[in-house]
């Protein structure tokens, strides 16, 4: 039995920025090895795990996509032993001053993001947010040592240690989207003890935060009949209270909108009701902001479902999630997949 918190914390301790996923991929590989029949790495760096179904050949294929890449930064220059940087993925510069980071130079260097005082910055609003291009990273080394250990293009990860809050909540960086990888692990574990007709392809996808490169390419290799995209969604909390957010820790989000095939939505909603798994309809009027945007349009098109784990403070180093929702997501995915009849695809149709 996999201990969710241990598994999640292990993943959170690994770097793996978009385009630089190997540290996290190694950990997911180890976790999925006993749960899958075959593990491969795609040309772009996504991890593909195949769990063969018990149905007769040719079996239908369901793909789960959980992106494993993280947002972070990259060194753009070094001045007096301090580094300037740019972002990988979308980061609000206002959350950066005072953050613990690791600079992945010739060795991993612990550091901190620094907001210089106003008189070292261009004239302007001395009390306003400092633009990212003027922020610095300090690794506590003297300039000569920095010159030996760091160069332009080195990546920088967030280094905030995960914190356990009350009510099964966990806070940390990169919970987007390691929580979904964890939910996929739980799903694979549950499927070990259940029969399923379909082949299950679990994908820890690469580069979601920058290019959707993993999600655009893995379906081409796998050619799934349907895809379940699991990602984080907005939980209600400070600064996040409108229709885009669903309650925190009170059930998973079932995505509803143009990226999602309505028949798949129905399948998930029915199953959640049947199992009394709490859920919320998570409306996505234009796009889902997930791997589904890419997967949906690969080759001749793939029906997608988007499952969301509600998360507060997205893209900050203190993203917060309830472990309950991770477990619910894993359980719901496993139940839907196990109940896919050999001919289920015939019911995933328009105008039915």
């Amino acid at each position, binding site marked *: 039995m996999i201990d969710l918190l241990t598994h999640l914390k292990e993943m959170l301790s690994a770097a793996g920025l978009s385009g630089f996923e190997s540290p996290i991929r190694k950990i997911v590989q180890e976790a999925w090895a006993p749960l899958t029949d075959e593990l491969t790495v795609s040309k772009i760096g996504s991890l593909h795990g195949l769990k063969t179904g018990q149905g007769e050949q040719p079996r239908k294929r369901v793909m789960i996509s959980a992106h494993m890449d993280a947002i972070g930064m990259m060194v753009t220059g070094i*001045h*007096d032993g*301090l580094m300037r940087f740019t972002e990988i993925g979308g*980061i*609000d*510069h*206002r959350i*950066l*001053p*005072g*953050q*613990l980071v690791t600079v992945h130079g010739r060795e991993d*260097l*612990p*550091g*901190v993001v*620094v*907001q*210089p*005082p106003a008189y*070292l*910055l*261009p004239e302007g609003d001395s*009390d*306003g*947010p*400092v633009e990212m291009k003027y922020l*610095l990273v*300090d*690794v*506590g*080394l*003297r300039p000569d*040592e920095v010159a030996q250990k760091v160069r332009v293009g080195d990546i920088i990860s967030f280094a*905030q*240690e995960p*914190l*356990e*809050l*009350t*009510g099964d*909540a966990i*806070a940390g960086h990169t919970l987007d989207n390691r929580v979904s990888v964890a939910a996929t692990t739980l799903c694979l574990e549950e499927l070990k003890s259940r029969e399923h007709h379909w082949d299950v392809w679990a994908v820890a996808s690469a580069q979601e935060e920058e290019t959707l490169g993993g999600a655009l390419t893995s379906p081409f290799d796998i050619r799934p009949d349907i895809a379940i995209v699991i990602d984080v969604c*907005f939980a*209600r*909390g*400070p*600064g*996040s209270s409108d229709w885009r957010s669903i309650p*925190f*820790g009170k059930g998973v989000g079932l995505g509803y909108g143009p990226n999602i095939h309505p028949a798949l939505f129905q399948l998930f909603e029915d199953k959640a009701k049947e199992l009394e798994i709490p859920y919320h309809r998570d409306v996505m009027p234009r796009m889902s902001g997930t791997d589904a945007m890419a997967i949906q349009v690969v080759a001749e098109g793939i029906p997608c479902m988007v499952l969301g784990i509600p998360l*507060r*403070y*997205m*893209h*900050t180093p*203190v*993203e*917060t999630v*309830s472990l309950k929702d991770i477990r619910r997501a894993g359980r719901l995915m496993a139940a839907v997949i196990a109940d896919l009849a050999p001919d289920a695809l015939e019911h995933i149709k328009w105008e039915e």
Partner: protein
Amino acid sequence: MTKTNNQPTGQAPGIGASQIELLEKLCNATAVSGDEHEVRQIVLEEIKEIADEVTVDALGNVLATKLGRGENRVRVMLAAHMDEIGFMIVNKHEDGLFEFERIGGIDERQLPGKSVLVGRESLPGVIGAKPIHMTTAAERNNKIETSALRIDLGPEIGDRVKPGDRATFATRFEVIGPSIRAKALDNRLGVATLIELLKHAPEQIDLLAAFTVQEEVGLRGARVAAYAFNPDMAIAVDATPAYDLPHWDDDDENDRYNTRLDAGPAVYVLDAATIPDRRLVNWLVETAQQAEIPCQLRQPGGGGTDAGAIHKVRSGIPSVSVSVPIRYAHTAVSLARLDDWTSTLKLLHTALGRVTPDLLAVERRD
């Protein structure tokens, strides 16, 4: 001006594994102004065997006396504040969310996305921020006000946290290369230094150690401590910002660095609260030169230390401040060099060993 003398100065202190371990304990402890309990307990435990007399006064200051030997001992007060900047919970909202206020000078731009420890139980919480996806470009041009932020302790916090509880940044102490990375280096560096000085007190003076409270909210502890001790002279031992960062324009020079890392202890010549006694400034600088200890003059300017209160107590107390230069004071993560701390301790110990009544025999002069 001071005579060099060769009086015994006790065993010379240094910074080794046990001093670093003590600093780690002090930095990781919570002592927001007005609730200095955790640091006070560590200090009391460390000094109970060393000092001749230890008291905790009405405000919570720890006052420790280490008497010297012989005649005409100068009564030297050393003050290091125990308190740190932080937060107080002021209002409870639904869903594990709490409104908070800042205590001490904290730039609110340093708050979003930080982890904190709340209350005497040190319960972990986070100060989140609105997801970037929900912000507009115009919104991102304005800082996030404290009033828009909450401390999130999780949905089942119940009554374990209530208005009035203090909170501090959750950053844990770490030695990185030649540096220390921690919260509250302002002023646990001073507290750790003062503990070492008590342990290695020169014998020709009476060392009056004040571990003070409420410095960050108005130098309150130092004022009453100085009254109680009634010393001949005083030194505030603190930490001061090193703004020795590059100018955004590489062609421009940073000439307002305040202090620099790797340049040794900073001796104050003028700040917003004190015009230090030049006899004491010169005594420190000459000691540094003669003993070949790195030392720098803090650029005259703003800020202040416990000396700001002490020098005006009773009929006036000759005072000066010495600080360890640190980067990023009053944020979640400050950074200091081990070498600067070592030099600070060495300078203070050497200088105290050279104090004689002659130092103050002449009138205050420039």
